[in-house]
């Protein structure tokens, strides 16, 4: 590279030249009029002469001496070469000096024209090439958007860079082509990504990292990288809430996972149920996974708490529909909970308590490569209530008694290779005994729900960026429900051994193709016994009212079931148009095997009829596409088939049907998302789901033996959901979600469509939280939800034998409970110490003390109706200390 370096030399030349001129002028003035030069001309504009192209090959230094005539205005009137350096140099010098301008000289203190001698020097230098930055970027906190310093970025052995205080890193003169970028550090989870540098282009990137949590000053954070290679294709429609946000949502009492109830597409749960109704699907149709391990429920009894410690959660993701082929066995939504990486230094933990329960967690490294965490929670609500009321509250409602515990053990086997053990357990017990002088009113309830899981997760990130994940898991489920209503006993006891295995390989097949292949195995072996009324508990679609005494007829059955499905799956992400268009076809092939121990009701005096085995193969094609049309505007669509095995409790020859087959559904959705600003996004999705082969009660007055349940039901749901979200930044986050939906069922062919029991036309939630400063934090939540449909009682008849009235119903689900409207608030104060943090909070539900109808109840003869209303203003005070 050739560069002219004339500036300094010419400046010196200009300083020297006036002195020569001055000597000549003084001589002339003395001979004639003896004028006196009172001021020298001063160069005020210098014009740089280009080094002549014709002389570059010689590369020599040259000087041209010129005489410059300057008028009394300081302009160059003329210039002539006095000492040539060659035509090219002479001309370049002449052209340049004619563009000079001067502060004019003065003679006798008056501006006057003068001539000066000027030497123009040309110096030829060859500059060593300056390194050019052709790959740089910023690493920032994904939520706070704050830069993160100290992150090490490496390019496949070419070199490293460490982010500065601005989170900036840069590389110079990176060879063109593809490179494996490794983001690592002594306390980072090492991940890789692939970047390609092209000729003449500078690659600037932004990587968002997820700090696990706030760590006391002076301690480095363990970070988890969101951007990995190959990118993990998220579900087309999903809402991910981070732990930090979830904990601050009012009404959750600091429980991160409860925030799912506030996401779009989720109906508001009926009071005390904690059920997840997603896009109009039945609660049991939505699958829940923790690190790939299926768990049967997300919330403890009554929906008070989640069954998993929020402090071990990195993120919870709700995909209401249209998810990929990695998951199946559910007709509804998908909830995936990802646990976070454990910290590598120091002993950390927390203790927290409020009037409902207490929780604690300890986390520590065992060695440089092994870490563990253990967490537990236990309720004491029954004892809390006894302190503030002189009534036995349990006479009115069952008081939940629960606990849960989790253990996580992480071990780094080697570079980018690790194994994790996750064990968790949860138990809920609800007990109520209500004695009465009336034998028919003597009631008792006992419900036990417990499950345990233990799973291993082996992860390896290969050098080429691909990854391998293996997750075997095992567990037990136990549910027991005993209810006695007068002389009608009801009991259902179910014990299951459940197991699963998930494996997946994800890698890049070419520049624009990333594929995932895997195997998803899940099975259960259940032993059940049930006695009581076939009508209790009521099923979705039953003609029933809340609190209605069960029918007097009872029966009993004991049976075993085995349900197994093995699902190989594959999905491939094709990227087009510079990564703006992604098309992800997937396929899941899932043979289901269902066995029930007996085909017909057992009798002691007859030989066993034998069991029944049902084998069905499901083919679930899935397709999703997303198109980022503009940097801030994208579109998405998805379609998929889904299948679901029958519930073990429905495979009874007495109470159900042992020959039930799998249920089917397909889901279709489309939507758009707009990035309104760096932190604000808007997403809208339109969806339609259709399900068939649903299990319903037989409507025959003379049903076939062992066919009390049949598969003649159909379902459909359609609507739209909107999410306007401000991500956590500068202490503020919030969202507005709105779902407009209609969910319907048809129990038997020929019947009209009716509203689903959990249908809610409008569900709107507004959540906002803001850090006021000085550790204060204020949050608010507003919810509106259409009331659930209910079947009106048109009249009643008197049952003389049982001395009670029984209802006669009108059109099914033709009325609704009035809408639910509630505002909640939360205020918290944080205290930060050198090695600890503490928080106290007040979570106030229903701040306006609105009477929200929750359920319809009738008087004893169904002549009058009223509503059970929700909670009055309810302040919940809690505290948390962590280190």
């Amino acid at each position, binding site marked *: 590279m050739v560069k002219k370096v004339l500036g300094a030399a010419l400046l010196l030349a200009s300083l020297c030249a006036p002195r020569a001129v001055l000597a000549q002028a003084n001589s002339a003035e003395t001979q004639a009029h003896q004028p006196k030069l009172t001021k020298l001309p001063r160069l005020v504009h210098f014009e740089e002469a280009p080094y002549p192209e014709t002389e570059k090959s010689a590369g020599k230094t040259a000087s041209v001496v010129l005489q410059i005539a300057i008028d009394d205005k300081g302009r160059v009137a003329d210039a002539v070469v006095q000492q040539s350096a060659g035509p090219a140099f002479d001309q370049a010098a002449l052209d340049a000096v004619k563009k000079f301008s001067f502060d004019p000289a003065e003679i006798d203190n008056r501006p006057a024209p003068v001539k000066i001698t000027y030497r123009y020097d040309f110096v030829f230098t060859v500059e060593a090439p300056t390194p050019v930055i052709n790959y740089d970027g910023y690493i920032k906190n994904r939520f706070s958007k704050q830069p993160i310093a100290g992150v090490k970025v490496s390019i496949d052995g070419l070199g490293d860079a460490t982010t500065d205080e601005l989170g900036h890193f840069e590389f110079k003169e990176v060879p063109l082509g593809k490179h494996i970028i490794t983001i690592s550090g002594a306390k980072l989870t090492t991940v890789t990504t692939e970047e390609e540098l092209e000729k003449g282009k500078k690659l600037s990137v932004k990587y968002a990292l997820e700090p696990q949590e706030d760590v006391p000053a002076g301690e480095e954070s363990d970070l988890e990288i969101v951007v990995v290679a190959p990118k993990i294709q998220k579900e087309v429609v999903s809402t991910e809430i981070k732990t930090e946000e979830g904990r601050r949502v009012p009404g959750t009492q600091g429980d991160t996972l409860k925030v799912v109830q506030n996401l779009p597409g989720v109906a508001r749960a009926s009071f005390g149920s904690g059920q997840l109704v997603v896009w109009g699907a039945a609660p049991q149709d939505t699958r829940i996974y923790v690190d790939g391990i299926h768990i049967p429920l997300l919330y403890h009894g009554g929906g008070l708490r989640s069954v998993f410690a929020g402090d071990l959660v990195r993120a919870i993701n709700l995909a209401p529909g249209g998810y990929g082929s990695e998951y199946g066995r559910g007709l509804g939504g998908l909830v995936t909970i990802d646990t976070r990486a454990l910290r590598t230094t120091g002993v950390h933990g927390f203790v927290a308590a409020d009037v409902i329960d207490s929780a604690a967690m300890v986390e520590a490294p065992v060695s440089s490569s092994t870490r563990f965490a253990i967490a537990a929670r236990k309720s004491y609500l029954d004892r809390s*209530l006894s302190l503030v009321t002189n009534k036995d509250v349990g006479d009115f409602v069952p008081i939940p008694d629960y606990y849960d515990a989790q253990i996580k053990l992480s071990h780094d086997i080697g570079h980018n290779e690790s194994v994790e053990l996750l064990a968790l357990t949860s138990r809920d017990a609800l007990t109520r005994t209500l004695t009465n002088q009336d034998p028919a009113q003597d009631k008792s309830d006992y419900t036990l729900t417990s499950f345990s899981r233990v799973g291993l997760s082996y992860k390896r990130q290969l050098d080429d960026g691909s990854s391998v994940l293996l997750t075997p898991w095992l567990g037990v489920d136990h549910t027991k429900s005993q209810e006695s209503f007068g002389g009608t006993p009801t009991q259902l006891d179910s014990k299951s051994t459940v197991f699963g295995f998930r494996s997946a390989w994800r890698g890049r097949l070419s520049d624009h193709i990333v594929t995932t292949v895997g195997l998803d195995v899940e099975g259960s072996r259940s032993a059940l016994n049930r006695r009581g009324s076939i009508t209790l508990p009521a099923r979705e679609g039953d003609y029933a009212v809340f609190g209605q005494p069960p029918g007097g007829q009872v029966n009993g059955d004991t049976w075993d079931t085995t349900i197994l499905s093995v699902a190989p799956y594959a999905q491939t992400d094709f990227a087009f148009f510079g990564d703006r268009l992604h098309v992800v076809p997937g396929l899941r092939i899932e043979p289901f095997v269902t066995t029930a121990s007996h085909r017909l009701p057992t009798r002691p005096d007859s030989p066993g009829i034998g069991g029944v085995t049902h084998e069905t193969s499901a083919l679930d094609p899935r397709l999703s596409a997303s198109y980022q049309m503009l940097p801030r505007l994208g579109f998405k669509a998805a379609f998929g088939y889904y299948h679901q095995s029958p519930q073990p409790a429905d495979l009874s020859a007495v109470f159900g049907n042992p020959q039930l087959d799998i249920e089917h559904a397909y889901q279709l959705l489309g939507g758009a998302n707009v990035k309104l600003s760096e932190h604000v996004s808007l997403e809208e999705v339109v969806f339609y789901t259709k399900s068939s082969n649903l299990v319903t009660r037989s409507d025959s007055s003379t049903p076939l033996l062992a066919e009390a349940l049949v598969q003649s039901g159909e379902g459909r749901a359609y609507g739209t959901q909107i999410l306007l979200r401000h991500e956590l930044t500068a202490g503020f986050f919030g969202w507005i979600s709105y779902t407009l939906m209609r969910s319907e069922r048809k129990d038997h062919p020929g019947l009209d469509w009716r509203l689903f029991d959990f249908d809610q036309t409008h569900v709107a939630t507004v959540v906002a939280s803001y850090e006021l400063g000085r550790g204060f934090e204020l949050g608010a939540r507003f919810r509106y939800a259409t009331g659930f449909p209910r079947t009106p009682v048109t009249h009643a008849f008197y049952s003389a*034998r049982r001395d009670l009235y029984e209802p006669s119903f009108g059109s099914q689900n033709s009325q609704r409970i009035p809408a639910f409207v509630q505002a909640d608030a939360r205020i918290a104060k944080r205290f930060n110490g050198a090695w600890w943090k503490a928080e106290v909070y007040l979570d106030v539900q229903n701040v306006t003390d609105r009477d929200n109808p929750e359920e319809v109840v009738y008087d004893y003869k169904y002549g009058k109706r009223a509503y059970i209303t929700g909670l009055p203003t309810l302040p919940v005070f809690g505290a948390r200390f962590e280190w």
Partner: protein
Amino acid sequence: MVSRRKALSLAGLLASAVACTPEFTDRSSAVTGARVLAIGSSPAEALPGSDVTYKILVVDANGLLKSPNVSWSYCTQPKPTNELNDVATACFENSALSLPLGFGVTPKGTLPINGCAQFGPDVPQPASSPSSNSGMGASSSGSAIHQTQGRPTDPDSTDGYYQPVILRVTAGADRIPTLGETRITCGLAGSTGEQFEAYNRATKRNENPQLLGVTINNMQDSALATLDAGEPLQVAASAHLSLRASWPACPTKPQCGDGICSPGEAVQDCPDDCTTPKGCGGSEPFAYLDPESHELVDRHESIRVSWFATRGSFDTDHTGRQEGEFTETSSDDTWSAPSEAGPAFIWVVLRDDRGGVDWQSFRVDVR
């Protein structure tokens, strides 16, 4: 009238489990209009095809209605499994699904012959083609069920099956749809032959309980006078009467000659007691086949007392004795007389949990 109880407005409680339950002020013990309070049959339990005599207790705020307009019919349609009530609602709506029985307050009827198929453990038949299956004992053979495709009706918690009786009661302008049920003697679902024999030895057909009377504990155990018995009791306004409904005790062991055909006694062994079977009138013993364990269990009836009054109020609408209290022969309640003078009518209905019923009517004059 609905009042709202704000349950437990305390810090920190059940975010969603404790709610506010409305309280209805209307009570079942208060007779404020025309109502059916009880339906009885004699015998209390019978084979399908047997003759049965019925009676009904219809009252209103002015006392006993002696001649209400009552239409009786037998429902022939089994209840669909997706209906939670005790009878197919269609039987109230479609007269084609019922067999006329009679009219009046004491009609006689013949139980449909196919009762055990339609409402019992035998093979159910479509309502339009009644079976000739009498039911008794036939279904105790397990293989019979396995060879058929129909789902039998489940028994109640006393192994009982019931023939629904549809009543259309008209009292003045009031129409009172009512379900009566007659216990029918059928087989024992899910039993072996040996179990069925043991069951028959240990169980007698249900007999109606017997309400011996109602005494007043806080008035030297004087008795309430029935409507037919003479002068009504005079009580002060706002007085509190501790009432006791009594029924006979049942022998703990069968004893031939006690006038009661107890389980274990048969007409061959004890013709005096069992030629015309007579129950003990109290908490009768019976055998029960546990549907889950398939074992016979010895049990006793629970007794339920329903209290009704046209004026004043009872502490509790219903009282009674649990199964485990079968040796107890009474149940108490307190009636508070109205503050204004005038007659008050009281009815006490005694029920066992196998479908038997008895009642008495009383009048009290409040001074």
